[in-house]
């Protein structure tokens, strides 16, 4: 089974990270043998240096490699017009950028309609996934409020962790049609993946490993051995993400 990973990171952070890789070539060398053959990749500089430098770095890093798609960081359009240009969403397609990330805590903004206005309406309309990671400081009320303001927004909740992830995230999946769960730490919970699929459906779970912080082998093994149908495994492993990307590309 081939896996299409929505949650891959490259780049060396300012504080040394075990197993961090500098390039897409190194990334797929690390993933060799896991079954992860494609992925949506972001660069740690997008968070640590800023969107201007980081977005350019990930565009350069994935260029020419068919295995990798990119992910850009968004900032408030009012203050950061140099990054959030009028043609931002069109430039994404040119650079094979298929998803967005936001770091409201680290980059100090409100992830809200007051800050993003019609930009996130356009993102919603195009079906571009916004990847929200709980690896970094992130409060659930922010996501709940965001979804209330942009109910059609496509959001993938990544790096959910163990503590109450289902109690916090499942109501969002149930109430908003375009909210998805990234699999790695959903499947961390014993029986978690099976229960999520049974309750929410396999269409709402997308494979992610959280590399390099978390183990791609572990993420893969959990899906392979989950007690769900082969069809559901295929959706989670690659099908659901492919569908999202095609939708965002207007195909």
């Amino acid at each position, binding site marked *: 089974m081939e896996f299409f990973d929505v949650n891959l990171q490259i780049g060396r952070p300012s504080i040394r*990270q*075990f*197993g961090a890789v500098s390039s897409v070539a190194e990334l797929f*060398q*690390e993933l*060799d*043998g*896991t*079954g992860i053959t494609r992925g949506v990749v972001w660069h740690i500089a997008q968070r640590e240096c800023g969107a201007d430098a980081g977005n350019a770095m990930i565009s350069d890093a994935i260029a020419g490699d068919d295995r990798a798609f990119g992910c850009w960081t968004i900032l408030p359009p009012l203050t950061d017009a140099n990054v959030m240009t009028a043609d931002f969403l069109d430039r994404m397609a040119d650079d094979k950028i298929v998803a967005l990330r936001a770091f409201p805590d680290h980059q100090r903004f409100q992830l809200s309609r007051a800050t993003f206005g019609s930009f996130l309406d356009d993102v919603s309309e195009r079906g571009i996934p916004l990847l929200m990671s709980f690896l970094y400081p992130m409060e659930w009320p922010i996501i709940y409020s965001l979804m209330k303001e942009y109910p059609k927004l496509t959001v993938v909740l990544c790096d959910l962790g*163990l*503590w*109450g992830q*289902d*109690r916090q995230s499942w109501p969002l999946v149930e109430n908003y049609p375009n909210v998805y769960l990234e699999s790695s730490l959903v*499947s*961390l*919970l*014993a*029986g*978690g*993946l*099976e*229960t999520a699929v049974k309750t929410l459906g396999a269409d709402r779970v997308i494979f992610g490993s959280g*590399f*390099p*912080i*978390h*183990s*791609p*082998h*572990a*993420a*893969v*093994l*959990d899906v*392979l*051995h*989950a*007690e769900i149908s082969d069809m559901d495994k295929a959706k989670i492993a690659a099908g659901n993400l492919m569908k999202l990307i095609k939708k965002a590309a207007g195909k």
Partner: protein
Amino acid sequence: MSIKSTLWERFKTSRTLDDCPIYDMHGHWGSFSGISMPASQFDIAKKLLLQSGVKRLVICHHHSLHSPDIGNAANIASVQQLPEILRAYMAINPNYPEVIEKDLAEYDSYPDVFVGFKMLSGYHRISVDDPRYQPVWEMANDRKLPVLLHTWKGCPYNGYEPVRKVLEKYPDAKTMLGHSLFDDWDIAAELGANFPNCYLELTAASQIRGAIETMMKTVTSEKIIYGTDFPWFNQPYCIGTILGADITDEDRRNILYRNAMRILGE
């Protein structure tokens, strides 16, 4: 590094391997107030353990740890419900010395249940070297019994300093550092290297890539123990973290079952 492992290739196609049983030395049982866990239900837990080839899971029931009014009765009942897989650590809550005294007096009445003790000092807010734990440590030390500690970086109750004190004072107890002083991997490894009966247990730790490799700069794989906090963490995920670490298959076997079998005398 790209991992080259026969075990990885075999586990990819088979959920269990007869020649690589799973010995999980850090388990729990039942429900817990802060989290919804499918495997807190008996039928689901049993099924998941069997499906993953878990030959032995040593538990301490959540209710035994968190309710003195329930106490170790929950541990005894749980092991008796699934004796082919489960053994238990006697739950020790030093806030209730009178309960400890009674429990220790009854320890030998349950030779098929208890294999040692579990201390959850960070939750009970009493340091592992506090005198209220003394009768337990003395018994563990005299009988060379396993003691599973919950240990965490910087914690005043179960961080490096208090843990080192009990290792010095009770060197014959088989002390397992649950979570390996989480995020203090090199310090945990130092303790594992300096104290012959101190082991590093991997619950939550193995999920952070590099933790095992960092520990193994200082200790051999014979001092590292597999654990999952089951019914918290999923067995395939945790097994995958061991298979994906940059170590040998012999190391993986030590971690997944050999060391635990030795500690349990099986």
